[in-house]
């Protein structure tokens, strides 16, 4: 990255002066190095790294299960493994990826690390609660993994009753208990963020000076707090029904199986935004930094975060158009789903407009961000296909849905996660990663992803149902293509794991602000000292105070 250079117009990038390290207190990583100091830490930054290590581990487990699934689908008749093994593989893939990777990923790692830094605070409001939530998370995850060790679960990550309560002979209870426990961790994290953002902002850090990352996490935390108790209730009822045969969901005991679907999606659709909003927050930091330009439509994007978090509670019924729901309900849920798509679209156009007339650097985080925009747009618009009633009747529960939510969740969450990881890696670790390898990984992942998942839109439209261990022979070609793509994708994931770890020992030492980025987290050293700032940070005049200002900062007075 060249630190200066002629960039048209009047703006000029200020050369960066690395701050002196002489006589400084040790940073948070080196302050203490015993295991005890890590496992009993109340420093939000260390807790963030505990989460980072854990969710990376879960991602690997989920990815291996995905590999098993793609391997099985190379042949149509399921010759490679039994249907039972296949079902267990896709179940554990879904359970681990959704509950133990996607939902905690960005909030628990980047959110934990960055929110206090970004608002100029010393820590989160409740540091001990923060550590507790990590232990709760790990306890839940281990519970669920026990079920895998014992022999697996075959209910799918959605745990629909009465399959899960009365008909499955697998280890459903430990899996359910684990997922229930993890919910409490989300609630604690959400609570901590909301209180922190309300009460611990540095003097002068008004709401409309907060980075979009913080807005996005505020909105996410509201979903954590309002929606998680619903899934917790539903899962506890499911556990009770499986253990004691109470008739809540199982018609054999007078229950209603559709009730479970309502409770499940009342949480799980908003959960989609738990996965997506933090990713949008990350992209809203990366794009301005690499365009050196203020985020276009800052206020609109902030409002859109809260708007999305609110409307998302009213569209759960679009998962049940073909499940015996009344036609009127379906019409209403379909219409409301169209209304969610719009604020999502707004963000994409804002990022594009931010790049316009910027001074662009195509470093790894920016490559990931651009990949994100492409995949997210496709994922979002195919969501509209699903929300269209007549189309849903055909592609519901087919591979079209699988492709759609992977574009949203992998495209949206994972690419934002990796982009953010590269962007803040110097801040987290005090080291620079290898830029050329970073670019290779971003390109491989984008390519591998599309080869894997695009064919699945076609498969779904042709009528291949999801969760199929065997399939008619005419679908083989597209399935083989998809599995080949998954191989490229796997390589793409492997690269960052290698060169990022390598950089911990051999990477160049990072300056406080390697990207010339704005935001308080870049005002302190890399890695930051234990209490984040040595002297109180100076809150900027406007958010995203980059050299190239768009016209709109005049329109909207920041």
């Amino acid at each position: 990255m060249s630190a200066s250079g002629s960039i048209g117009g009047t703006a000029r990038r200020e050369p960066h002066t690395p701050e002196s390290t002489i006589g400084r207190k040790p940073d948070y990583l080196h302050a203490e190095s015993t295991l005890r100091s890590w496992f009993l830490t109340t420093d939000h930054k260390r807790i963030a790294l505990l989460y980072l290590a854990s969710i990376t581990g879960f991602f690997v487990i989920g990815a291996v299960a995905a590999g098993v699934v793609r391997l099985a689908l190379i042949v149509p008749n399921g010759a490679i493994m039994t249907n039972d093994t296949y079902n267990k593989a896709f179940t554990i893939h879904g359970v681990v990826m959704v509950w133990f990777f996607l939902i905690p990923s960005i909030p628990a790692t980047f959110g934990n690390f960055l929110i206090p830094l970004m608002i100029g605070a010393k820590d989160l409001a409740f540091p001990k609660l923060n550590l507790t939530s990590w232990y709760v998370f790990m306890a839940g995850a281990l519970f669920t993994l026990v079920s895998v060790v014992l022999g697996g679960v075959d209910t799918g990550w959605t745990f629909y009753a009465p399959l899960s309560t009365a008909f499955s002979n697998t280890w459903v209870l430990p899996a359910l208990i684990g997922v229930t426990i993890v919910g409490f961790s989300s609630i604690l994290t959400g609570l901590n963020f909301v209180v922190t953002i309300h009460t611990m902002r540095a003097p002068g850090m008004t709401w409309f000076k907060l980075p979009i990352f913080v807005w996005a996490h505020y909105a996410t935390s509201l979903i954590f707090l309002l929606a998680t108790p619903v899934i917790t209730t539903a899962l506890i009822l499911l556990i009770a029904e499986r253990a004691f045969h109470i008739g809540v969901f199982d018609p054999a005991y007078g229950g209603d199986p559709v009730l479970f679907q309502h409770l499940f999606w009342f949480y799980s659709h908003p959960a989609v935004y738990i996965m997506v909003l933090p990713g949008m927050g990350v992209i809203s930091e990366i794009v301005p930094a690499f365009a050196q330009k203020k985020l276009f439509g800052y206020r609109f994007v902030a409002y859109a975060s809260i708007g999305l978090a609110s409307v998302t509670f009213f569209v759960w019924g679009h998962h049940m158009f073909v499940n015996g729901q009344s036609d009127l309900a379906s019409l209403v849920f379909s219409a409301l789903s169209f209304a969610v798509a719009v604020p999502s679209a707004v963000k994409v156009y804002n990022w594009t407009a931010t790049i316009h007339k910027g001074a662009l650097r195509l470093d790894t985080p920016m490559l990931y961000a651009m990949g994100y925009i492409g995949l997210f747009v496709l994922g979002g618009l195919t969501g509209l296909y699903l929300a269209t009633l007549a189309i849903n009747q055909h592609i519901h529960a087919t591979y079209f849905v699988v492709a759609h939510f992977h574009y949203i969740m992998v495209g949206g969450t994972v690419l934002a996660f990796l982009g953010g990881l590269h962007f803040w890696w110097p801040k987290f670790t005090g080291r620079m990663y290898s830029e050329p390898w970073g670019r290779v990984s971003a390109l491989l992942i984008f390519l591998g992803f599309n080869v894997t998942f695009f064919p699945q839109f076609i498969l779904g439209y042709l009528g291949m149902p999801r969760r199929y261990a065997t399939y008619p022979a005419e679908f083989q070609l597209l399935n083989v293509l998809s599995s080949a793509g998954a191989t490229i994708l796997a390589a793409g994931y492997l690269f960052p794991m290698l060169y990022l770890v390598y950089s911990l020992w051999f990477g160049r030492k990072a300056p406080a602000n390697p990207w010339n980025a704005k935001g308080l987290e870049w005002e302190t050293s890399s890695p930051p000292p234990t209490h984040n700032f040595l002297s109180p940070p100076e809150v900027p005049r406007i958010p995203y105070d980059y050299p190239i200002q768009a016209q709109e900062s005049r329109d909207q007075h920041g």
Partner: protein
Amino acid sequence: MTPSHDSLQLWPAAVSATATETDLLILAFTVLTLLLTVPVFVAITYFALRYREGSEADRSPSGIRSNLIEISWMLIPFLLTLIFFVWGARLYVHSKNPPPDAMVVEAIGRQWMWKFQHPTGQSEINNLHLPIGQPIRLHIISQDVIHALYLPAVRMQVAALPDRYTDLWFKADKVGTYHLYCSEYCGTDHSVMGGEVTFMNPGDYQDWLTHAGAQQGKVAAGRALYEAYGCAGCHEPGSAVKAPSLAGLYGSQVKLTDGRTVTADDAWLREKILNPNGDRLAGGGKQVMPSFAGRIPADELGTLIDFLKSYSAPAAGKAADATPPGATR
């Protein structure tokens, strides 16, 4: 008669007017999608190249009022997509209201098979024969978990719930044989729960009902039960359990463990299925077969035994072809 298995087909067959209109809706939606996304992709690529750091591009403020842009780029896509909401909703409401003269076929889902019963009483398993040119209403329920009946050729599916009836209606106007699936994950053999739907000319359908439906259809149904209840999993050659083959068993002499010999007739088969470890145990293999008492309803037991009667050659291929000549696609 199996569906055509072209190695790479890019458009699913459509057999009803609703299916054709659904395709049109999807095509039009795709055009809109391209309209909304291609400019973004082109713009991002173009900006990324033109505004690279150090390039000589003009970066003076453009003077466009951003509030106006924001509002227009929110409103225009929203209004455009609303057209599709209305279109999709109309089609959906139409597809939810069957005409009163529709022919009602009962469909029952169960781990892991579909049973269909025609208005005239004939029933079949996993396969479904229907006349064209006549509105059909499938009246669907499940006996255990949630399943879903999916007919891609008419672009429709609906859940089979264990506690209430759901409906699916359509009017096919092209003969042919197409896939029929279970599309709601329902446990181990979810992916093999299904078969084929065959649309026939009304005359051929009547023929099928009187001849094939009653005769061959019954054998095919028995074969499907033989597979659905897991008999095939143990008794077919090559299975891990190595249970004796049942092909050609009917009418043969069976030696029992206590030395007696019996004829494998209806009564003996019936007893072996319901009470495999009773006193009339066949000699040879260990008894590992589970009892099916209470699991197989009486009518299905009859169908199953009818199949065993006609089951002569081992591995005689999939379900006997129940389609009479003339009912080709």
